[in-house]
């Protein structure tokens, strides 16, 4: 125990590690805030130039970027309705209306405070339950991931905002577009028409930037007058009573985030969407109706995607399986430094576990300070006249899209999605479900087919599987409940209507 504490305290007393964590958080906030620049990209860039560094220093910087980057995605979602990262899509649903009301500062302040709390929840679970959750997450079969993706698809009703049928239509179109490219199982080309640019598929980040960024800019150009909303930045730090009020929701959402984050292949984006839906269903008296600037609508997804950070480290440290893309890169870094991530990692190199826990803790503290300090300069962005800011947003979208795979063709796709998103918005088809469809489409397709192959292509054993495995049964019942909870019978029973 004493030795563990010593390992834990190393980053606190080593000024170089401390400085690198703070630098990482600062850089991460800015990287995360810019659509198209992802934490994954930043982490992979860092690997290349921290190759010759001491492992502890490299880990300190990467952990800082990870925490800062996940947080940064919410800033542009709140300020401009352009999520910096897929994990912030749900944040914009209520965050942007808050900015339109002049409460961007308060929204970011609340989001920062609760995010830090959620980071610590994730770290606490990582400390206490890592081996248990790690083992449990391995029990998930392709059928369970398929069911999890179906649960995700059912969120379309929550994030659509308008006509649910139009939301579903947009979501299914997203699923169809996600099928473009080479089939990962068989290598067969789908909807590529012999075009080499379509063979790798369409990145959902490209689509996201177009559907949110460019279409938002076009909608702004459509609205005459282009009024500037004066932001109230007097008191951005929530007081204790506000913190206490939202604490139960934060705990629920961050625990959900830890759990989803611990499942290999899923991450903060799925966690945030599930948490938003969960909040919408369970919070009976939100500060405002969801979708119009409810604080709960910002807190739930933000705490979930921060909780997912700690969760993503669980399978990585206990089993050597990455929880998400960033932990996959960290695994790569460990290999580069001669370590073998896996069940023996915590036994052979226990200091590494404690070092990561410590780095994440310091990064969370740095996030609180840097996040709150940057609220005012960030919030001032929306006070710049839109005639100036919107052309810059378009150029930012171009840079972000090009950065994904250095392809000009992606820019054409992005603009195409932007124009399509503009028409969709005009006719009440929300763009959020389409991005959700793009994200969940491959997860649905791949896991359905794996599960079906596991059932030897027989429909009956495939369906039976939903009721024979305990995890599948739980998820199936949860899906039935999600569907039932949308019916009038349930709403009347719960006196929602």
């Amino acid at each position, binding site marked *: 125990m004493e030795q563990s504490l010593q390992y834990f305290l190393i980053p606190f007393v080593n000024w170089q590690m401390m400085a690198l964590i703070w630098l990482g958080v600062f850089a991460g906030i800015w990287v995360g805030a810019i659509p198209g620049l992802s934490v994954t990209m930043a982490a992979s860039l860092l690997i290349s130039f921290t190759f010759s560094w001491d492992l502890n220093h490299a880990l300190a910087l990467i952990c800082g970027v990870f925490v800062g980057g996940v947080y940064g995605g919410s800033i542009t979602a709140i300020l401009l309705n352009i999520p910096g990262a897929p994990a912030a899509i749900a944040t914009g649903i209520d965050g942007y209306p808050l900015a339109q009301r002049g409460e961007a500062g308060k929204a970011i302040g609340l989001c920062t405070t609760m995010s830090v709390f959620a980071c610590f929840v994730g770290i606490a679970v990582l400390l206490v339950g890592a081996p248990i959750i790690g083992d449990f997450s391995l029990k998930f079969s392709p059928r369970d991931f398929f069911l999890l993706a179906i649960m995700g698809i059912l969120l379309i009703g929550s994030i659509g905002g308008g006509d649910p*049928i139009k939301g579903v239509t947009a979501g299914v179109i997203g699923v169809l577009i996600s099928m473009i490219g080479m089939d990962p199982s068989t290598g067969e080309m789908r909807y590529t028409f012999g075009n080499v640019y379509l063979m790798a598929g369409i990145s959902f980040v490209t689509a996201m930037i177009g559907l949110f960024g460019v279409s938002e800019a076009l909608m702004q150009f459509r609205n005459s007058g282009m009024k500037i909303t004066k932001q109230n930045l007097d*008191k951005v730090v929530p007081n204790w009573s506000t913190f206490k009020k939202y604490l139960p929701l934060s705990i629920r959402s961050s625990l959900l985030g830890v759990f989803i984050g611990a499942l290999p292949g899923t991450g903060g984006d799925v966690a945030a969407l599930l948490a938003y839906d969960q909040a919408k269903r369970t919070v009976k008296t939100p500060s405002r109706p969801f979708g119009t600037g409810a604080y709960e609508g910002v807190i739930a997804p933000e705490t979930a995607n921060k909780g997912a950070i700690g969760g993503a480290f669980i399978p990585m440290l206990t089993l050597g399986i990455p929880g998400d893309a960033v932990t996959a890169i960290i695994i790569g870094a460990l290999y580069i430094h001669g370590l073998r991530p896996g069940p023996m990692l915590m036994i052979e190199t226990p200091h590494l576990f404690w070092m990561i826990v410590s780095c994440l803790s310091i990064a969370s503290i740095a996030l609180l300070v840097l996040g709150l300090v940057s609220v005012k300069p960030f919030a001032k962005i929306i006070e710049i006249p839109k005639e100036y800011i919107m052309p810059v947003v378009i150029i*930012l979208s171009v840079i972000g899209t090009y950065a994904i795979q250095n392809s000009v063709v992606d820019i054409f796709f992005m603009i195409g999605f932007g124009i399509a998103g503009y028409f969709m918005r005009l006719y009440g088809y929300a763009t959020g479900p389409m991005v959700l469809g793009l994200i969940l489409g491959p997860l649905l397709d791949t896991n359905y087919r794996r599960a079906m192959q596991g059932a030897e292509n027989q429909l009956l054993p495939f369906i039976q599987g939903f009721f024979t495995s305990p995890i599948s049964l739980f998820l199936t019942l949860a899906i039935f409940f999600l569907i039932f909870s949308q019916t009038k019978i349930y709403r009347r029973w719960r006196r929602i209507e």
Partner: protein
Amino acid sequence: MTGNNATILDNTNTQTSSSQLKDLSRYVPEKRRKPGEIGFSVICFMLGTLGYYFALDMTSGQFSSPSVFPKLASTLIMIFSAINFWKACKKEKPADTDPGLLEYLMPIDVTVIILMLVGYCFFLPRFHFIASSYAFMVITMVYLHRGKKILQALLFSAIALAVLVGVFRYIFLVILP
């Protein structure tokens, strides 16, 4: 921190533009259809039809074939688009005072910006990022200010571009188009 904070944060009827914000928590169907709403649902239906048609070329025959999900998604698009079509038909016609289809879809500002975007994409590979982006920003800003504030547009675009290039190219080491 004072109790005022909580009041500010928890105030449900706050300030400015709350009346302009549509309550998205409960869907209230519109009485009148928008110009071109029926046509848009037809386009979605056609997208589903084409999706299904091209999925017929993919390998099929088993429940785990590559064509299963594309066919399923296409069918669902057709079904939901048909529902949207039916719902749009049930609505009242657009009012006489409503703008025409072209005016509704493409107001002059949006048309100009889209044309400039297309032009920007065309010039980007030829004149590279800095020149084409600067030209795009200046022209857009001057247009949106209706030909006024040319100097501010030139200056703001130069500063914005310098910051963008500095941050992305030299700090984040991102390759620019």
